[in-house]
């Protein structure tokens, strides 16, 4: 019994220590203001984290938009309400699926890559030698990736929303034959710029912060072995995904809850 309590206590303390280390790292990295010559580090990260994720985000968005349009059309056409397909599609995407699915895809594609890259640098002592050269890895490696993710993900979410709506148009309007005028006017009247687009982008920014924080920390804090790197990469994807879904619930409750 005593051993069990000791183990639980030890693990709890360990979790708090990890959270403390992660918070200190986050504060130090977030305070990074690029000097002359350091902007290229940020631009390179926006490219590798953001631009290189466009293909997977675009393909997934098109497929999701198409499926949503198909479902909406099938259900709504039974009541003769095909014109509401555009409105339903836009609201679901802008408020929920856009930020959430982009966040999940981002965690799987860019988050795991960030963790693996930083973890490998740690395992091969590249971070240590950087420290020994008088170069702070938090400024040079962690901060550009953190900011690169925070900048990229909301933009990817916007791209996701646009491509998904296009996928909905292709299936709903061009294939199934919903009226284009009704589709677009329904969407236009249902969507409030601040309420729907704005709040969706706030969600995207918060998810970006969480996913990149988890990804850089897992890489930076991983055990410098092959097994440690594998565990850290898995943890990034699992932790980020769970956090995105949990935070989304609370954000939706705060933003749209009527209580």
């Amino acid at each position, binding site marked *: 019994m005593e051993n069990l309590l000791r183990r639980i206590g030890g693990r709890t303390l360990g979790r708090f220590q990890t959270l403390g280390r992660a918070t200190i790292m986050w504060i130090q990295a977030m305070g990074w203001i690029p000097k002359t010559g350091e902007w290229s580090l940020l631009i390179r990260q926006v490219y590798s984290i953001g631009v290189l994720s466009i293909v997977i985000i675009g393909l997934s968005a098109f497929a999701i938009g198409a499926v949503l349009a198909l479902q909406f059309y099938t259900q709504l056409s039974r009541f003769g309400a095909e014109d509401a397909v555009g409105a339903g599609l836009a609201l679901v995407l802008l408020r929920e699926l856009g930020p959430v699915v982009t966040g999940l895809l981002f965690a799987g594609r860019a988050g795991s890559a960030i963790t693996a890259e930083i973890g490998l640098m740690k395992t091969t002592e*590249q971070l240590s*030698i950087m*420290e020994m050269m008088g*170069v*702070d890895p938090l400024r040079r490696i962690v901060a550009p990736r953190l900011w690169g993710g925070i900048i990229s993900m909301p933009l990817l979410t916007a791209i996701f929303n646009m491509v998904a709506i296009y996928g909905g148009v292709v299936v709903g309007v061009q294939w199934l034959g919903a009226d284009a005028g009704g589709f677009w006017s329904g969407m236009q009247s249902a969507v409030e710029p601040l309420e729907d687009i704005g709040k969706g982008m706030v969600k995207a920014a918060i998810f970006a912060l969480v996913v990149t924080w988890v990804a850089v920390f897992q890489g930076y804090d991983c055990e410098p072995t092959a097994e440690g790197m594998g565990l850290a990469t898995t943890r990034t994807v699992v932790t980020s995904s769970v956090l995105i879904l949990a935070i989304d619930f609370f954000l939706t409750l705060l933003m749209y809850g009527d209580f």
Partner: protein
Amino acid sequence: MRQDYVIEVEDLCFVRGEKVIFDHLNLKIRRGAITAVMGPSGTGKTTLLRVIGGQLKPDSGRVLLNGKDVCTMSRDELFRARRDIGMLFQTSALFTDMNVFENVAFPMRVHTDLPEDTIRDLVLMKLNAVGLRGARDLKPSQLSGGMARRVALARAIALDPDLIMYDEPFTGQDPISMGVILTLIRDLNDALGVSTLLVSHDIHETASIADYLFVIADGKVIGEGTPNELRDHPSSRIHQFMHGDPDGPVPFHYPADDFRFDLLSEVE
């Protein structure tokens, strides 16, 4: 006034978990000389380099780098102080996303405002010193272990440091690479007037270039002196280590029950 010693380790204690790595360790590294710290594997040689470089904090004691205590420096002070230290890791630790030229240019680009053509000239000079000017465009994955270590050495001297620290520089090297690295360590020390701290358990190679040796075991310095003094040292532990005797104070056999008893006992 410049001090005689570039590093002074005073009463250093370092414990990791239950294991005592350093138990009131004292040693001084003379300026301008090649000093080697030797000892069996697992005695904390690499840990000592990391404590000197401020990457690990000791439990007690002081580590003076040019008279300033590394252990009490702020993060910024520490990063500034490290610019005067060149370090060569056992793994070479080259940046895998950069080619050889960019690896050597990295410290110059980060710490100086030198124009690009000056950086180019300096990098080529450093690479020429290690014999790899022609390999400037290769990626680290295209280099052999020996070449990677020479590139890491060129990078370590990029900012003309006061002190170069080598962590097991001879491990895993073929005889030719070994000869090249030995020559480079000696020549760079003499030509650049730097101080050199080398940790290794390769006795013959280390003794052939070191001016002064420390042998550490059980967290303490158990012997020090010039290579010749240590070869004839009266202590049986140092004699065993310096001559590579398989048995002695450090026993060949891991502690076990009596061999005859073991053989005659029943299989469990």
